[in-house]
């Protein structure tokens, strides 16, 4: 089976999410990549070095500069003429593009794949991860999005893929990019961080969220996350959100501060290797999944922890 993986990149750098998708695709068969963007020669070179990849198709055109689904999907559809599966990471870019491709190919997509059980059989979470379904696709071509935390990252070096330019399918004139506000941060990216410190509604305000969570995160070299309750209350930006409708993470250590542990939040972090919870309510559901729990007032405990680390 020949798989086409859409390479995710930003600012001329290949993003880690691509590497997990490559691993998932390699379980299906041959792995070829698509780099779409403007001025992406460097990304294509990085992509060709990923261990185990074959061809790296490069579509370099202004129409692909911001990964607009209206322009990228027809390009993918054309390449799918000689591929059997389209594999993308479950990122906001992947989730935007893949179903558009699937519908154009008349294929029912399999979303957020956790494991590849065979060339047409996959497991995926449903009901916020409260159930795991094993599904078999009867479509001749497959379109899947892949949960990054469920697959090891492919090695970024050592591969010898061949870079091949492909013609642009052009700008469809349906949409255009206006602008973006991407938070610049010195901290690691949430989905690839080894340690995450997350704050919940108990932080009480945006000021306190940053006053208590940030120093602890910096001491641990951690990324900062938040529960949906904290995001809804305006204490943290939405791109911090961990959970069913936010980001799915599985770091080495997840520190949940003032997070009660709603099922929707647990859905986003329960595969973390070690979970530490600090909460004043000893009956909070977060303690049912935490490896280490500390009951008490976070406004006292967190500064003490930050200082003693």
């Amino acid at each position, binding site marked *: 089976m020949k798989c086409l993986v859409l390479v995710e990149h930003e600012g001329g750098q290949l993003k880690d999410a691509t590497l997990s998708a490559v691993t998932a695709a390699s379980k299906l068969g041959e792995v070829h990549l698509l780099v779409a963007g403007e001025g992406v020669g460097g990304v294509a070179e990085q992509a060709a070095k990923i261990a185990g990849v074959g061809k790296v198709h490069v579509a370099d055109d202004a129409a692909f500069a911001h990964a607009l689904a209206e322009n990228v999907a027809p390009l993918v559809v054309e390449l799918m003429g000689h591929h059997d599966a389209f594999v993308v990471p479950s990122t*906001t870019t992947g989730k*935007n593009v893949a179903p558009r491709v699937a519908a154009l190919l008349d294929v029912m997509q399999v979303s957020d794949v956790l494991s590849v059980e065979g060339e047409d059989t996959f497991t995926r979470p449903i009901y916020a991860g409260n159930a795991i379904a094993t599904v078999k696709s009867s479509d001749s071509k497959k379109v899947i999005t892949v949960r990054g935390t469920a697959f090891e990252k492919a090695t970024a070096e050592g591969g010898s893929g061949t870079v091949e330019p492909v013609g642009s399918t052009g700008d469809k004139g349906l949409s255009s990019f206006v602008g973006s506000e991407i938070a610049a941060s010195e901290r690691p990216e949430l989905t690839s961080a080894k340690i995450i410190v997350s704050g919940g509604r108990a932080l009480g305000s945006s000021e306190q969220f940053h006053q208590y969570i940030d120093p602890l995160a910096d001491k641990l070299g951690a990324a900062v996350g938040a529960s949906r309750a904290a995001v809804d209350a305006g204490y943290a930006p939405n791109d911090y959100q961990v959970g069913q409708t936010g980001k799915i993470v599985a770091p080495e250590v997840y520190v949940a501060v003032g997070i009660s542990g709603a099922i929707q939040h647990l859905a986003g972090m329960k595969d973390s290797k070690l979970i530490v919870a600090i909460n004043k309510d000893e009956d909070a559901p977060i303690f049912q999944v935490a490896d280490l729990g500390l009951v008490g007032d976070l406004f006292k405990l967190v500064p003490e922890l930050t200082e003693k680390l």
Partner: protein
Amino acid sequence: MKLLVPVKRVIDYNVKPRVKADGTGVDLANVKMSMNPFDEIAVEEAIRLKEKGVASEIVAVSIGPAKAQETLRTALAMGADRAILVVSETEVEPLAVAKILAKIAAEEQPGLVILGKQAIDDDSNQTGQMLAALLGWAQGTFASKVEVDGESVNVTREVDGGLETVRLKLPAIVTTDLRLNEPRYASLPNIMKAKSKPLAQKAPADYGVDTAPRLTTLSVREPSKREAGVKVQSVDELIDRLRTVGVIG
């Protein structure tokens, strides 16, 4: 401009789903069902566009069991003008839902279709994008802000690193994210009024769409459980434990 708002009847947000003992699915017998939360946000956004004078009519659509009529009545009570129920007692996959919606869009000619970004039961996150593809329209997914401006709409999207704004030619598809708005509750008088708003009943065959599933669910199981760990008594004990497992030096 007319707005089309598809809504789905799903397990209530606050109910913890239980996997059936025979591993065939999730037990929905006697479980509270509600409108998918993202779809409530879609209905709310449509009502706000109508209140602003941007939209003139809101048509709510649901594809699902006869009981999805209740979900449509909720949309009508919130402020939708009329509803279409496409009855299917068997589950309809996002691709087939999108095909039915594409047919309805061709009939109704809406300026915008506003959908929830995902349903909280199957968590697929596909229908809006698929509908956009089938119609050949632009798509503004995971929207946190929607501004109609003449022949186009500016949609601010929640993306992994922050926010991104795209400009889409109308007609277009918008899928909602959580922060787009806070849906209103329907008032009792409006709930009463909704009972007399028009609700048309259809079948997938009326639209010539084959809803045979492409995916077969072989089994459904519970995720592996995490054992609760230990409670430590102090910050010092926590640090000791973290040191023991090598998390900190």
